[in-house]
């Protein structure tokens, strides 16, 4: 513990950084209530809550939300299965080429999203696969898998390997061991990974622009509004909704993984 406080200049710089990170997001809230719909006039000439009602009535927004939830849901389930399998294999066995395979498993987030998107699109083109919900799901699962993989792998690495042996030693076969020992140990990591994957998919725009065809997910809808604005405050209302949908799982995931670290540390 240090007794002296921080230098004033450092404090100001740090606070300025916090303001820089957060003030823009706060402005979104403010603009959702403006009466001005043709420009981004500041300060807003008046305030109203009517835009929330307008959004409620808009079928195109509901369709976009529906598609986003569907895509994120399916992609998350697939990512959970594939990511967990990959993490289990990488963590439990040493085999030829393991390092290369683990590199492959992080490639989809290491490379820019545009590379993933364009590569998938060109393959759809070559193989004559028509764009559909499933082509979007395919793209999203590719990077969601990586998020789950990273979360679950980190948990496997903190879990003592002798735990699985102990279970088998006490008479539990592979399935029982998975059910009673492995699953409870990785449950919170799965939940956290799943939530992050959902949030990531729900918000994804770059890969989606390449794999979506005519359908609009919510981010695609927003992108269109950004490029060709119509009723601007509506976009703000949708933005608030998106912030809520992505913030809550992310906060929950943060607390879940912290909890996990805590218990794993105490078990030593």
């Amino acid at each position: 513990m240090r007794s002296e406080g921080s230098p004033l200049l450092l404090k100001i710089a740090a606070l300025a950084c916090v303001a820089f990170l957060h003030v823009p997001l706060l402005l979104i809230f403010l603009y959702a209530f403006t009466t001005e719909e043709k420009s981004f006039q500041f300060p807003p000439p008046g305030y109203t809550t009517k835009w929330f009602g307008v959004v409620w009535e808009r079928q195109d927004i509901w369709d976009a939300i529906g598609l986003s939830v569907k895509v994120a849901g399916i992609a998350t389930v697939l990512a959970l299965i594939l990511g967990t399998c990959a993490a289990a294999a990488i963590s439990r066995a040493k085999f030829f080429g393991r390092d290369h395979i683990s590199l492959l498993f992080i490639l989809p987030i290491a490379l820019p999203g545009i590379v993933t998107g364009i590569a998938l699109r060109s393959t759809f083109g070559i193989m004559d696969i028509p764009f559909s919900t499933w082509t979007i799901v395919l793209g999203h699962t590719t990077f969601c898998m990586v998020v789950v993989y990273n979360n679950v792998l980190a948990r496997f690495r903190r879990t003592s390997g002798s735990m699985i042996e102990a279970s088998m030693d006490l008479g539990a076969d592979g399935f029982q061991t998975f059910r009673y020992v492995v699953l409870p140990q990785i449950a919170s990591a799965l939940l956290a990974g799943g939530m992050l994957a959902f949030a990531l998919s729900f918000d994804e725009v770059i890969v989606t622009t390449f794999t979506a065809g005519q359908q609009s997910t919510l981010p695609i809808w927003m992108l269109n509004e950004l490029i060709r604005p119509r009723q601007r405050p509506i976009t703000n209302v949708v933005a608030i909704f998106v912030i809520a949908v992505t913030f809550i799982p992310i906060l929950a995931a943060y607390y879940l993984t912290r909890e996990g670290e805590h218990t794993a540390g105490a078990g030593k």
Partner: protein
Amino acid sequence: MSFSRSVSNTLFRHPNWFLVILLAPPLLWLGVAYLGSLSVFLFHAFFSIDEFSGFIKYELTLATFAELFRLSNFDVIIRSLVMATAVTLASVVIAFPFAYFAARYARGKWKALFYILVMLPLWSSYLVKVYAWKLILAKEGIISWLAGELHLTWALDALLAIPVIGGPSLSISFLGTFLVFVYVWLPFMILPTQAALERVPVSFIDASSDLGGTPAQTFRHVIFPLALPGIIAGSIFTFSLTLGDYIIPQIIGNSSYFLGQAVYSLQGTAGNIPLAAAFTVVPIVIMGFYLAIAKRMGAFDAL
């Protein structure tokens, strides 16, 4: 014996089968579908486009790569590189004081709060963040209003009058693009820098001042070198993300292209897949070099 027991026994006797069952689905997905798509697409860079018919000529050639060096194309590459470098440097300058403060002076609850203060903007919607800046940078937006209130409109106008980086308004200028890039990727710089600074023991700083180092000397010779791997790790993100992005310059900025936009329009409206592939190779190669250098400087231990 129950069915599950006999399956379990079989897998026990053949541990390699079990490994194959675990690995096959993700490997098929990423190794075959993803990596396959990527290789097939990138291989198109060795083909060229027939100028008359607009169809792809499936003959191996380096002509498409050569086209990258045509002035208009090379411009795009240089512009993207300059932007990525500027964004990275600015991120370091803004992130460092915050990371240093959070690492050294924040304790307990405050530390958790600082962490969340970075995590929330990091994970919040990318489009929402870009959109927020469209509001801020608009001609009638908050920056113009602030400048007016503070009687600094002349300064803003002077800034926008600077050739190349200026423009009719902040949202239609390189300066605006730059600001948004910095904003969006800043958390990626803060987190690894803070992690590296956390690992600098306080005793090192005390030792340096005990040996007569002024705060500035301590910073230069002790703190900064030890934080460098973290900064480099962060710069991998800011640099790579800026190079590959095509949404931000499309929404905020003037009409000149960055790498991502070039790729996007080439594969879309222009239908020139070979050139799009050649353009895609550029950031991959640049990041390859970047990662090799970063690895040598120990940045991967800081991730």
